[in-house]
């Protein structure tokens, strides 16, 4: 009986205290015909040594290809201290800090996290995390709808340069509430949200606009202009940002006239391994005026009866366990452990380390772009100021070429045609700080060969 400590003797004592003969008696209330005999698809239990062997084989099977895909999940270096500390039992096996006095570790850490998020984004407040970047965008849309009292339309402008999966997820989540996500065209030469397309909505009742910086193609948007335009039109500005990029890019809190109103993003680049897509966490920060519409846990600093600093969950009246059907969101369990990792990650890197990482990513990607564009049959599609992602177009089938690269254990980027039919044989590539010159060389050589 793995993980069940009871000895025969103890079981008997316990049964006699309850006053029954066998454990089965405890299930007497359950209709007998519902009880099952056994499980069919669950194999017999393994001991540790056997599960080790099995999982090691499984993990080894997938190789560890040289990764040039980004598209929302980035292969960054994570300092060794991060997960060694994060997986300490005290963080790993605690739960939501309902008993504040016995959870000051998690609570203070979360407060520090919130502080780091506001520092990075230039916003006033942060929550303690949402599930991921995509659901954070969805929650931001819901929050904008709740907050923008002047707007009735429930129309949200979403430029096509926003991560298409984020848009898809947002759609899944908000569609039941009569909210409409309106596509906004992008400029086909720059990949940026078309200012003209946006301006066509001037004067209309629009609830919010989403601005992605950098956008899905790595291109930097005209965030100042869009923000100012939006505010002039009573439109709430939702920024979708890569938090690592904020080590060097202008924070959404000071975009345009008055800054974005809500800034969201995925925390993965700050200490979460790619790990097949998760767990990551959703960042959610906002201006002061929006705080009471935020979804999710929020930690506040307060004092105890002796005036000592301490930390508690606060503004709980927003949440499902108090407000139930009228809560700001149904979220309960969030991504706490990844937030723990991320907070330690940011502490270890500091502003300078984060900046160096961001700059390395950027310069590696620029080197990659340079190398690849020198190959016959490769063309850089959007030659714009960018951050650490770029789009190349090749003169063969992107799918075929990517498959060929994969055979050589290289993930050569993301084929864009599924989401952008007009971008045939266009590939989104990315080189983080880990993809050093040697790696870029391998990729370039393999790509050149594949295009021969």
């Amino acid at each position, binding site marked *: 009986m793995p993980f069940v400590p009871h000895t025969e003797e103890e079981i008997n004592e316990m049964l006699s205290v309850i006053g029954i003969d066998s454990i089965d008696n405890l299930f007497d209330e359950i*209709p007998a015909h519902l009880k*099952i005999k056994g499980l069919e698809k669950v194999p017999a239990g393994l001991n540790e040594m056997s599960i080790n062997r099995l999982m090691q084989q499984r993990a080894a099977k997938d190789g560890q290809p040289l990764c040039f895909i980004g598209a929302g999940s980035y292969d960054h270096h994570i300092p060794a201290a991060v997960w060694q500390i994060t997986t300490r039992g005290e*963080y790993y096996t*605690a739960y939501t800090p309902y008993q504040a006095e*016995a959870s000051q570790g998690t609570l203070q850490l979360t407060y520090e996290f919130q502080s780091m998020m506001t520092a990075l984004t230039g916003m006033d407040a942060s929550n303690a995390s949402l599930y991921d970047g995509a659901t954070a965008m969805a929650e931001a849309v819901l929050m904008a709808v709740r907050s923008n009292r002047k707007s009735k339309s429930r129309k949200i402008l979403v430029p096509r340069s926003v991560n298409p999966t984020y848009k898809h997820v947002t759609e899944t989540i908000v569609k039941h509430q009569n909210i409409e996500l309106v596509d906004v065209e992008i400029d086909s030469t720059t990949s940026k949200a078309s200012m003209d397309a946006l301006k066509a909505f001037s004067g209309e009742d629009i609830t919010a606009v989403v601005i992605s910086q950098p956008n899905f193609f790595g291109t930097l948007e005209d965030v100042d202009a869009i923000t100012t335009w939006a505010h002039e039109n009573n439109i709430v500005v939702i920024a979708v940002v890569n938090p690592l990029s904020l080590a060097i890019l202008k924070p959404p809190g000071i975009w345009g006239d008055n800054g974005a109103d809500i800034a969201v993003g995925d925390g993965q680049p700050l200490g979460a391994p790619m790990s097949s897509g998760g767990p990551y966490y959703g960042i959610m920060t906002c201006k002061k005026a929006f705080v009471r519409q935020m979804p999710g846990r929020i930690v506040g600093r307060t004092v105890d*009866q002796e005036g000592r600093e301490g930390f508690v969950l606060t503004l709980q009246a927003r949440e499902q366990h108090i407000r139930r059907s009228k809560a700001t969101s149904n979220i309960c369990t969030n991504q706490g*452990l990844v937030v723990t990792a991320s907070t330690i990650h940011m*502490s270890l890197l500091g*502003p300078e380390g984060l900046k160096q990482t961001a700059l390395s990513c950027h310069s590696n990607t620029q080197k990659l772009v340079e190398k690849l564009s020198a190959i016959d049959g490769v063309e850089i599609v959007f030659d714009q100021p960018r951050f650490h992602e770029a789009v190349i177009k090749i003169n063969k089938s992107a799918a075929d070429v990517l498959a060929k690269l994969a055979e050589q254990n290289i993930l050569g980027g993301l084929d864009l045609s599924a989401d952008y039919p007009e971008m045939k044989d266009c590939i989104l590539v990315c080189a983080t700080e880990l993809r050093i010159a040697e790696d870029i060389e391998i990729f370039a050589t393999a790509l050149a060969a594949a295009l021969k």
Partner: protein
Amino acid sequence: MLIFEHSASGRKTKIQSTSGNEMPTDIPASLLRDEKPGLPEVSEMQAVRHYTSLSQKNFSIDTHFYPLGSCTMKHNPRVCNSLAMLPGFLSRHPLAPEKLSQGFMECMYELQEMLCDVTGMAGFSLAPMAGAQGEFAGIAMIRAYHDANGDTERKEILVPDAAHGTNPATATMCGYTVKEISTLANGDVDIDVLKEAVGPQTAGLMLTNPSTLGVFERRIEEIAKIIHDVGGLLYYDGANLNAILGKIRPGDMGFDVIHSNLHKTFSTPHGGGGPGSGAIGVAERLKPFMPMPGVKKIGNEFQWLTEEDCPHSIGRMSAFFGNPGVLLRAYIYMRLLGAEGMQRVGEFATLNANYMMAQLKARGFEAAIPDRYASHEFIITLKKQAKELNVSAMDFAKRLLDLGYHAPTTYFPLLVPECLLIEPTESEAKEMLDGFVEALVQVQQEAETDADMLHNAPYTMPVNRLDEVRAAKQLDLAWSAESKA
């Protein structure tokens, strides 16, 4: 002391020193940041020391008994962590091609299959990232199902008053209005009320079974029939699956769609609040509506489900594939337990709860539902103590911390006054259960002799009782150089 207070301008760890890169010239200055963000500037040693020491201020399963009802704080086997963190798993990009993902996909496929088996459902999706998101997926599927049937006038989701807050909140997010169904004193749903409530407007009923009151809903088949008869669907909130794991299955009870909190029943760590997984199981007729992505097996190959497999999919719930790191841990746990181990979970979780309930009753505590067997958890109500001694469930909870026990869930479910919802889980040994009973008895004695003392508990934590009102009124959500609590 906050990490920011260890900071000194210019201090670095150099962990990430990648040779003095300069700000890029290829980005216009107007898009760049001109002040460095106010992150802490500390050495590795300072960071390690700070977060190591901070961790010691937490109660956790690895350090304390943590009988938080409805949360299933069972032991998290350490091997689940180390194997889920094998470099091969951590370094897999979510968009890696299937050919380079067979090892991972095989685990996910088998996890789906095992979950189907233990719940009696026809299909499982691992996409939802927590229980609440599982609920969302489930209710969205119910809605999509009705919609697909042209049945668009069903506007109501029924929820027992004992339900977890995420149930009604989810129904609202899915565009439904919520109607509460009352519960009988014996913990069962009031079937008469339910019968009254159902009708052509009923999209479905969300039910937890065993309920949050810690008892098994005996008339579940009747309830299922009532809902199905009016064309509604039955949703199973799987937070309490631990109670019946390996004994009975929601699918057999008539549920159409369920979520399972893998971070409860299948022992993935709670992580100070997450991440979790709210994997979702469906009956045959809901398969076309499952969220994406998912894994199928064709011959010996694992492939991603496509739109053809789920033509009416409610869509994607996350940027990629939910929380794979959590899913791997659940998979490993299930393989460790195996079929036999899984059956013992429900048995011993139930044994532990009933043993504690019996002991506490014998020591004078009042069980909320005294005449029935508990499921894997049970409720003590302290309403008498509140009235006669002026001590609240919260006072009991805080005092327990001093005695080295994490408090049970307090004030939930809402319908039992001054309640403690106690869930020991199967992984606790008898000696720990006995210790907790003695601790409650001690607090009771203290309540009788020195109630005031309890009002100010705890005394041995890093801080004593915190001012929550001040926290909400004088909002202090982020550090700034000037601020001080």
